């Protein structure tokens, strides 16, 4: 009589243990996927350098990351290539081309991924944050850079005086991430 409940219990425990194993494996897999996505973007992506616009240095550093504001975060309205007027929260593709100074600048903003681009041009995905008469405000998911401890203050001090050059990897599957941030070399300061 006493054997039945314990047998039943151990069966239930076995079943539960299987679920636990599955749940834990899924969590490990998820973290590995995040890491995998991160390293895949830098190995398969195209390297692009973006220039930041100077911002109020006091507002730059939040705890362990700095907030970056790019030249291409605000674009003039004539670059818009859509047939309809741009709307907030819409995803867009920004066509970038390299400049002699070493960083990329925006050429056009498309509502959908452009079919063909010149070989040295890159399409970067962003979202419209705000629309006004003369321009568009965009975000790219590249506005935060997590800095090694202690380097945030240094970066912040320099960024207040001169723009930073941010190295970004743009993957063919639309994801992008920052790989490196450097302070501007002297010649790039005077365009």
């Amino acid at each position: 009589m006493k054997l039945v409940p314990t047998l039943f219990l151990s069966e239930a425990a076995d079943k539960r243990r299987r679920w636990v194993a599955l749940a834990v494996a899924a969590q490990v897999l998820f973290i590995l996927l995040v890491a995998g996505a991160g390293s895949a973007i830098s190995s398969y992506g195209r390297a692009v350098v973006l220039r930041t616009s100077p911002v109020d240095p006091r507002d730059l550093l939040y705890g362990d990351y700095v907030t970056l504001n790019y030249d291409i975060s605000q674009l003039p309205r004539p670059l818009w290539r859509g047939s309809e007027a741009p709307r907030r929260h819409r995803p867009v593709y920004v066509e970038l081309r390299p400049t002699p100074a070493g960083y990329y600048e925006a050429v056009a903003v498309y509502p959908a991924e452009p079919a063909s681009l010149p070989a040295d041009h890159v399409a970067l995905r962003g979202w419209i944050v705000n629309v006004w008469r003369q321009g568009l405000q965009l975000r790219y998911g590249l506005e935060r850079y997590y800095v090694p401890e202690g380097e945030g203050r240094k970066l912040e001090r320099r960024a207040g005086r001169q723009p930073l050059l941010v190295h970004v990897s743009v993957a063919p599957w639309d994801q992008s991430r920052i790989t490196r941030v450097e302070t501007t070399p002297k010649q790039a300061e005077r365009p």
Partner: protein
Amino acid sequence: MSRKFIEIEGQHWVEQGIISPEQHQRLLALYPEQQRAIGLLPLLGSLLVGLSALSLVAANWQELPELLRLGLLIGSMVAAYLGGEHFLQRGFRSMGIGLVALGLILFGAGIVLTSQMYQLVGYDVTGLLAWVVAAVVLTFIYQSHFLFILAVAIGVLAQGYSVGSLSSYSYASAGLMAGGLGYYWWRRPDALCGAILATGLLWQSALLINHLHIKITWFFVPAMLVYAAGDWQPNRPAARALQAPPLVAAFLFMLGLGMFGEAGSYTDQLRPHFVGFVGALLLVFGLSVAGKRARGHLSSAADWLLLLPGYYFPGGLPLAVAALVVLYAYTGSVLYRGYQEQASDRVNLGTALFILTTMVAYFKLTWEFMDKSLFFLLGGLLLLGLSWYLRRRARAIPPSNPPTH
């Protein structure tokens, strides 16, 4: 009964001849000596070792190679889950659940730290959503109240971050809390979990209203939907706990309306399109009343007095007075039901609400017209009279009456 008690007291009983020594032994055998959890010293020792390892890792985190960091994150998470299983199998449930909760927290930390490592924390709530999913799944697997509460907290955090930092509302996270944890609570109703779940759902609703930029009174449609769910739940104590947070919100809102409703500028913010809003509210009301009928406690329909949309009144004194009338009607209904059902806790609650409402009403209606000293004199007299009256009423019911609901 504790074994120690029988060991000591049993000796006296044997000496006094109440039980024989054999009977004492047999009694003792009923309470086998608990396996001592773990020695305290090894536990403290391993805690210290763990802390030193943690501080060593934290101090050198940036210098560690990426793969090692990843390994440490995953390794500690898996170790926590394995440890939890280990202790659960040996019957140390709270220790086991504690370690599982630690594993869940480490999963969240792992997502955040890994995405920071690869500069991926952009504008995406996927990682947080995965954390919420893991929390809900573990709650179902381990059927633990502690994990349930942790899951609500994680859901609250995820939605707060999504709305606050990413300015997007995560419908999936709200749905997981309402559907996943709601279903869990429905099957295993519990008072504490009900109150916490309802609070979490109110938070989700408030953030949704904020995100959609609609009139704040819309908040009461989802809030009262939570309340209506409580009406269908057969377990009454758990259901009352689920219904408390929406009622508290409605009461405080009404109180605020009574206090500040006079300023007409405000009330414009409170009036959604009449047909749509009142229609939705009536729909929820119907659902709630149907539940009350089905479960046989129709008398609690008086709770809905708090939802009377008085803010469609023109602003100014009429609105404040209307709000106060509603508050008195509600408080009166709580007191009435308390006396009717001889439930002393409800009488106490009704009394407290009555005093609160009276204070607001008094402050509201007399402050501007009366000399201040007279204000305090009359206020004091009113409260004294009230307490005398209520004490007299309270004597009418025996204090030891168990609550009926």
